């Protein structure tokens, strides 16, 4: 780069700066005109502002269009917000001086404002503003803006914004008479595969419809088929995602069950109630935060995780010590006794918290989602559940495979007498295992509290599904539970659109029964003597 070009660059910069300042100065002057009672002056001012590319210009026109623009005696513009708050359009901390006046907003001004705003936004330097404007225009059709959008689209460099502008144009051109424009519109629709055009296209394709041109019809059919295949893709991806998130929920519910069942051969019918207590612990922690740390309300969920784990683990250990240990080796009796425990837990929660559902709020960071494809949003809460369940699974895996306790647990699972003979205190291992299994159920409850209603019967809804996961996956292996949970979750969601939620469940049960015909011990069967002990 030589000196001259450097110099010219510098001059260019200075000029740009000066002109921008000049524009800003102009804008201040022009804004004053808006308050004028002379309609022509206002019209000229709006025209001038629309040519600007300052953020303030946009703020001015938007405020004007929403009838929230106020101008004080000195001609400084303000935007009236909620509850009489005023914020200066040009920034700073200016206070209004003297009486405020509002520009008169009549129909002719409104008619002028709409294209002015649109052209200002479509040509705005900030791509975010342009994108939002293009999306807005694609949503609501306004034939008068067509030339404006066409010009903007021709100039646009960013692909995403251009696509949206073309779609906005297509919305208009599709209803026009020009064949060439129609074909261009259909090409844009085909390229974007935008499902919102589906009804329009179907009307065009229909026999005896307003459309007569064969070429246009053919293009419309192509566009429709592209849209349909896109919709099918979205629904498959969506179902997979929902299946994955349902699988994660099932995994959280069944993981604890698999631990207690795998180790102790104990069917814990109160497992669902441990989930429920985990959810209620979340509720209690939320209440606590509301009362004592309202400023950090959103953090309650993080605090609830250890609290729920500790509470449910303690309840589980208490149950093991007081009831279940007397029933080892009598699985059917354990089933009935733990059912009795579940009734007592339900009634106790009902007495403490009431029979009605309680409200557990989603923290703000779990609201919303990412739009992966147009029309398909990955919600943060579901993503969080998937992440959380993988974290819990990793935790359980770590405890079982990498800690001395886990080593003992596995030893007792494989052969209780031999383990005892090697000096492992099997009774103590039982208690701890039950504690961990119950604690994991509590963690599942934390997740459930974010997904649905929290009520005393919460656990009953999940207990049958959790058992199915364990039966399907086979006991004694984490991988089996994992496979069972995701298999059931995804199968459930894939069947749902075809068969409906209820029939889908029944089909799944039938499939499980048929599956057990082939592999009575589940997907991951224990081999040898451990299997015979069932």
């Amino acid at each position: 780069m030589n000196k001259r070009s450097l110099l010219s660059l510098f001059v260019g910069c200075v000029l740009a700066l000066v002109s921008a300042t000049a524009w800003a100065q102009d804008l201040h002057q022009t804004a004053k005109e808006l308050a004028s009672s002379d309609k022509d002056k206002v019209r000229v001012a709006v025209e001038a502002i629309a040519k600007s590319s300052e953020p303030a210009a946009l703020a001015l026109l938007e405020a004007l269009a929403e009838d929230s623009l106020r101008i004080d005696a000195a001609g400084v513009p303000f935007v009236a917000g909620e509850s009489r708050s005023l914020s200066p359009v040009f920034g700073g901390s200016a206070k209004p001086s003297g009486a405020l006046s509002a520009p008169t907003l009549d129909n002719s001004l409104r008619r002028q404002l709409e294209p002015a705003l649109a052209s200002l936004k479509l040509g705005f330097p900030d791509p975010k503003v342009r994108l939002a404007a293009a999306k807005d225009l694609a949503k609501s059709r306004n034939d008068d803006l067509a030339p404006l959008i066409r010009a903007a689209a021709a100039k646009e460099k960013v692909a995403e914004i251009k696509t949206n502008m073309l779609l906005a144009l297509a919305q208009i051109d599709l209803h026009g008479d020009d064949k060439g424009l129609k074909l261009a519109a259909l090409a844009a629709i085909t390229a974007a595969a935008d499902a919102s055009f589906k009804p329009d296209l179907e009307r065009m394709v229909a026999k005896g419809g307003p459309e007569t041109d064969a070429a246009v019809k053919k293009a419309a059919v192509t566009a429709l088929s592209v849209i349909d295949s896109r919709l099918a893709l979205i629904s498959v991806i969506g179902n997979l995602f929902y299946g994955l998130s349902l699988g994660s929920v099932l995994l959280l519910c069944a993981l604890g069950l698999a631990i207690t069942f795998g180790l102790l051969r104990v069917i814990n019918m109160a497992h669902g109630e441990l989930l429920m207590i985990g959810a209620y612990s979340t509720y209690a922690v939320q209440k606590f935060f509301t009362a004592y740390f309202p400023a950090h309300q959103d953090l309650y969920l993080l605090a609830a995780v250890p609290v729920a784990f500790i509470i449910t683990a303690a309840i589980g250990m208490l149950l093991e010590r007081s009831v279940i240990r007397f029933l080892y080796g009598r699985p059917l009796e354990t089933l009935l006794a733990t059912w009795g425990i579940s009734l007592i837990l339900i009634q106790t929660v009902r007495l403490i918290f009431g029979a009605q559902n309680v409200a557990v709020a989603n923290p703000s960071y779990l609201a919303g989602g990412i739009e992966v494809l147009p029309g398909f949003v990955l919600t943060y809460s579901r993503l969080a559940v998937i992440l959380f369940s993988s974290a819990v699974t990793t935790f359980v895996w770590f405890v079982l495979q990498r800690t001395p306790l886990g080593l003992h647990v596995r030893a007792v699972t494989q052969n209780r007498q031999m383990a005892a003979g090697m000096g492992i205190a099997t009774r103590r291992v039982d208690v701890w295992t039950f504690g961990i299994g119950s604690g994991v159920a509590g963690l599942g409850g934390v997740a459930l509290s974010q997904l649905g209603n929290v009520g005393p019967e919460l656990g009953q809804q999940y207990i049958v599904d959790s058992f199915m996961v364990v039966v399907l996956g086979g006991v004694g292996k984490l991988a089996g539970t994992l496979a069972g949970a995701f298999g059931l979750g995804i199968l459930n969601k894939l069947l749902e659109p075809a068969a409906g939620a209820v029939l889908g469940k029944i089909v799944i049960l039938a499939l499980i029964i048929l599956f057990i015909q082939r592999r009575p011990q589940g997907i991951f069967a224990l081999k040898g003597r451990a299997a015979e002990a069932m």
Partner: protein
Amino acid sequence: MNVKAELLRLLPRNGWIGLGAATFLALLIPILNSVTAVDSALHVPDYLVALFGKFSCFAIVAVAVDLLWGYTGVLSLGHGVFFAIGGYCMGMYLMLSIGEAGVYRSKLPDFMVFLDWKELPWFWKPFDNFGFAMLAVLVVPGLLAYVFGFLAFRSRIRGVYFSIITQAFTYALMLLFFRNETGLGGNNGLTNFKSLYGYSLADSGTKLGLYTVSALGLLVVFLLCRFIVVSKAGRVLCAIRDEESRSRFAGYNPTSYKLFVYTLSAVICGFAGALYVPQVGIINPSEFQPASSIEMAIWVAVGGRASLLGGVLGAFIVNGAKSWFTVALPEAWLYVLGVLFIAVTLFFPGGVSSLLLRKKAAT
């Protein structure tokens, strides 16, 4: 075959005397209800008759569950299915016999008019016939149990696995019956019955009749199950319960024995359900709830397993307590039931009958 000798083999002498006394008492109830004056000390009020009628139906279920659990060692947590399906078969007949006396004055049952259906679904049509409906009460649960049991026992699903699968079975059917599209009244079920075989259900005579049929039904079912238990097949059942693998090695096929008992107990439950529905006047999908099936197991556990008398006693005791508590102390009932579950399994595995019969409980 010497019928008298066979009959005497069913029960010990004391047993026959007790059974006679119980039957006499049971039949005394309708007499005391209809003959004595309302203010007499001996009068049995109507609601008690209805209550005993209901309890008799439950006791029939308990005998069936006991035959399966106590003697064969198979704990089904889905016997509510057969009870409810028997009830639905009866309910469909009762629904159709309403005729045009329903709210909408239509030939169709009210809920179908409400759903704007124009025609009776195909599976409803034959239920117009009383004979067919009574046959269906026994055959439909039996067939369902046969198919389900065949699949389950064939693949040697045992113990808690079987209990869990049956629980899921009743859960799935509950969801199915909750649907309006199933054509059985959705979550409201079938109700507002008017008459049974021409007798108005509102008449106290019909009520007494239903009670009497229930009590006699209990007697017949009890003797039938007793007959099976004391027969050679009953011995094999106990052998399967105690050592399934060994009885298989000894040459018996546990699958077919289990399947027979499972199907029979399903048929008996269907019969009980059919008697239950006209007495309470409604059948809805809540009968399919896993909880109600599990409660059936606790009747047997309280009364004492492997003792048919225990089943009957348990059904009366638990349901009597339930009736009393849900009125007097509704909050406490779930606690009582929960403690009952725990206490019976922990401290009292032989149940009430082990006290009466001084027999060692089977484990």
